[in-house]
C-alpha cells in the first residue's frame, strides 16, 4: 500500500516538531526516516500510525484519506522502540492478541489462531519460545517477537520505531540484514526510524533525511551519500573534511591555487583522500600524521595540516602496508573527488 503525506505540521507546546512535511512512499518500498533526535522522525511515524494527531495536513493510504481513521482501523503494524510486549502474556498470547481482539464475525477459530502464531514464530525463527514470558527473552528475541505480533494482523504497512536502537552492535547488524531479507520476501511497505546512518544506508531502498522538523533530502542511499542536497545531509551521513580553498575554472583546488579565484569551502569524505609521500599535483596538501588506527576494514589516519587543521583520511590495509606509514611523519593528502562544495561568493 502506498502512503502519501501532505503538508503535515505538528507542534508540542511551543516546539515545532514537524513543519510542512510532504512525502510519498510507493507500495512495497523499504524507507528509512533518518535524523538526529528531536528531528521529528518518530512523531511523523506516530502520525502515520494515528497514535498522534497532526495539527494540519493530510495522510493518504493508497489514495484514501485516513486522517479521521483511528489507529485500530488503520491496519498498520507498529514495532515500538522498547517493543512494548505485553509483559503479563506469554509470547504465544502476545502474537495471538491482534487476532483475539478482532470482532466476533472476523475472529479466526482457536485452531486457526494457533496455526497462524506457529507460522509467525517460524518466520522469526523463534518457535521454541512460545510459552515464555517477555522478561525471559533477550533483546533481539523480543524485537523479533514484537515484529511477529505486528505481522499477525496482516498489516498493509509496517512502521518500526528505532527497531535496533537498544540492541548491542553485533545483534544489531544481524537483525538489520535479517530485516532486509525479510522485506525482500514479504514486500510489505515498511518505514523505519533510525538515527544511525550506517543502518539506513545498509537497509533502506530510499532514505528520508530529517532535521528540525523538516525533510532535508529524499533519495536512494547512493544519492544521499554521494550527492547530499546540503551541508546537514553531508555531515549527517558520514564524517567529512572541510578545506578552505579557491576554485579554478576547471575544478577545485584544496591549497593555494592560482587564477581568478572564487573563495570556496570544499568538503571531502575521508575515503576520498589519497595519502602519498610526494606531492601529487597542485591540489596536494601537506600534513603531519598524528594518529593511526589500523584496526578495522580500513585504516583510519588523523593528520594535522601546517595551519593546524585536523584532517581524517581512510586508506586500504594494502596501501597502508605498502606505504609503511609512521606516526609524526609528513605526507601529502590529495582529494580524489569532492563530495560537496560551497561558494561563498
Amino acid at each position, binding site marked *: 500500500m502506498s502512503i502519501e503525506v501532505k503538508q503535515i505540521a505538528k507542534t508540542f507546546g511551543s516546539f515545532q516538531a514537524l513543519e510542512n512535511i510532504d512525502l510519498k512512499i510507493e507500495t512495497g518500498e523499504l524507507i528509512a526516516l533518518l535524523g538526529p533526535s528531536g528531528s521529528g522522525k518518530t512523531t511523523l511515524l506516530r502520525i502515520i500510525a494515528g*497514535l498522534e494527531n497532526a495539527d494540519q495536513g493530510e495522510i493518504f493510504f493508497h489514495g484514501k484519506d485516513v486522517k479521521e481513521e483511528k489507529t485500530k482501523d488503520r491496519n498498520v503494524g507498529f514495532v515500538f522502540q522498547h517493543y512494548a510486549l505485553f509483559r503479563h502474556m506469554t509470547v504465544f498470547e502476545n502474537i495471538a492478541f491482534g487476532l483475539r481482539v478482532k470482532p466476533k464475525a472476523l475472529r479466526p477459530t482457536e485452531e486457526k489462531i494457533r496455526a497462524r502464531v506457529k507460522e509467525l514464530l517460524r518466520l522469526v525463527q523463534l518457535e521454541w519460545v512460545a510459552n515464555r514470558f517477555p522478561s525471559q527473552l533477550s533483546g533481539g528475541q523480543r524485537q523479533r517477537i514484537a515484529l511477529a505480533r505486528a505481522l499477525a494482523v496482516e498489516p498493509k504497512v509496517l512502521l518500526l520505531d528505532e527497531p535496533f536502537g537498544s540492541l548491542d552492535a553485533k545483534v544489531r547488524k544481524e537483525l538489520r540484514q535479517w530485516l532486509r531479507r525479510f522485506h525482500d520476501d514479504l514486500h510489505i511497505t515498511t518505514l523505519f526510524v533510525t538515527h544511525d546512518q550506517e543502518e539506513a544506508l545498509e537497509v533502506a531502498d530510499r532514505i528520508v533525511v530529517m532535521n528540525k522538523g523538516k525533510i532535508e533530502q529524499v533519495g536512494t542511499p547512493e544519492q544521499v551519500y554521494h550527492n547530499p542536497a546540503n551541508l546537514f545531509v553531508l555531515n549527517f551521513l558520514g564524517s567529512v573534511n572541510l578545506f578552505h580553498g579557491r576554485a579554478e575554472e576547471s575544478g577545485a583546488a584544496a591549497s593555494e591555487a592560482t587564477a581568478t579565484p572564487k573563495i570556496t569551502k570544499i568538503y571531502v569524505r575521508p575515503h576520498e583522500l589519497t595519502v602519498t609521500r610526494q606531492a601529487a599535483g597542485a591540489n596536494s596538501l601537506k600534513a603531519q600524521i598524528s594518529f593511526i588506527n589500523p584496526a578495522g576494514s580500513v585504516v583510519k589516519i588523523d593528520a594535522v595540516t601546517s595551519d593546524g587543521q585536523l584532517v581524517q583520511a581512510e586508506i586500504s590495509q594494502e596501501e597502508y602496508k605498502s606505504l609503511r606509514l609512521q606516526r609524526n611523519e609528513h605526507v601529502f593528502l590529495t582529494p580524489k573527488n569532492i563530495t560537496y562544495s560551497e561558494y561563498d561568493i
Partner: protein
Amino acid sequence: MASRTEHAGVRWTLIGTALTFLGFFIFLPLVMVFMTGLNKGIAVYFQSLNNPDALSAIRLTVITALVAVPLNVVFGIAASWAIAKFNFWGKNFLTTLIDLPLSVSPVISGLIYVLLFGAQGAWGPWLMEHGIKIIFAPPAIILATIFVTFPLVARELIPVMKTLGNEEEEAALTLGANGWQTFLRVTLPNIKWGLLYGVIICNARAMGEFGAVSVVSGHIRGQTNTLPLHIEILYNEYNFTAAFAAASLLALLAVFTLFLKSLVEYQYRAELKAALKMEKSA
C-alpha cells in the same frame, strides 16, 4: 545480610528496642482485646456478637464497605489514569485534591456533610421538603466513608500507572483492540497488584473509620451504628465484654488485612523484579 558497619551490640540494642516497643504498644493491646472479649467464656462472646444491635452494626459496616470500595476503585482508576497518562490543565490541583482527605481531620470530613445536608445546612431544607434523609442515616455514613477513603486506591495506582507508561496500550491499539479491550486485557492485568493492594487498604479503612462516621451517624442503635460506633457505645455503658468482643472482630479484620497485604506485596515484588530485569536487559 549482616551489616559490617555496626557493632553487634548496637544492632541488637536497636532491634531489641524496636521489638519491645512493638510488643508493648501493638501486640499486648491486641492480646488484651481478645482476652477481655473472651473473659466471660466463649458463649458470652458469641452471644454479645449475636444480638440484633451488633448484627445491625456489622451489616451497616459491610454495606458501607461494599458501596464505598467499588466506587473508590472506579474513581481511583479514572483519576490515576488521567494523572499518569494525560497532561491537562489543573493536573497538579487534582493531585493535591486527592490527598486532601488524608490531611484533614476525620471530624471535619464528617462536618462537611452535616454542613451540606444537615437541617441547618446548605441543601438541608430542600432535602427535607422532598423527604430525603441523608444526615443521621446510612447515606451520610456511606458518603463520609467514601470521602475519607477515596485517596487510598488512587494513591496506590498513580505511581504504578506512571511506571507502566503508555506503550503497551498503544501497541494494543495498533493491533486493532478498542478502548475497552485494551483496558481489560492490557491495563487491568498490569495494575492488578497495585489495585488489589489499594482495595485492601481502602476496605480496612472503610470498615474501621470512626471520626467522620461518628459525626454524621447520630448513633441510633440498630439503625445508624457501624461496628466502631457500636463498640464505643458498649464501652461507654461499661459493657466491656461485649465491647471487646466486637472490637476483636475489627482486630481480626486488621490481622487478615495485614496478611493479605503482605501476600499481595510479595506477589507484586516478584513481578516488579521480573519487569525490572526485562528493562535492564532491553
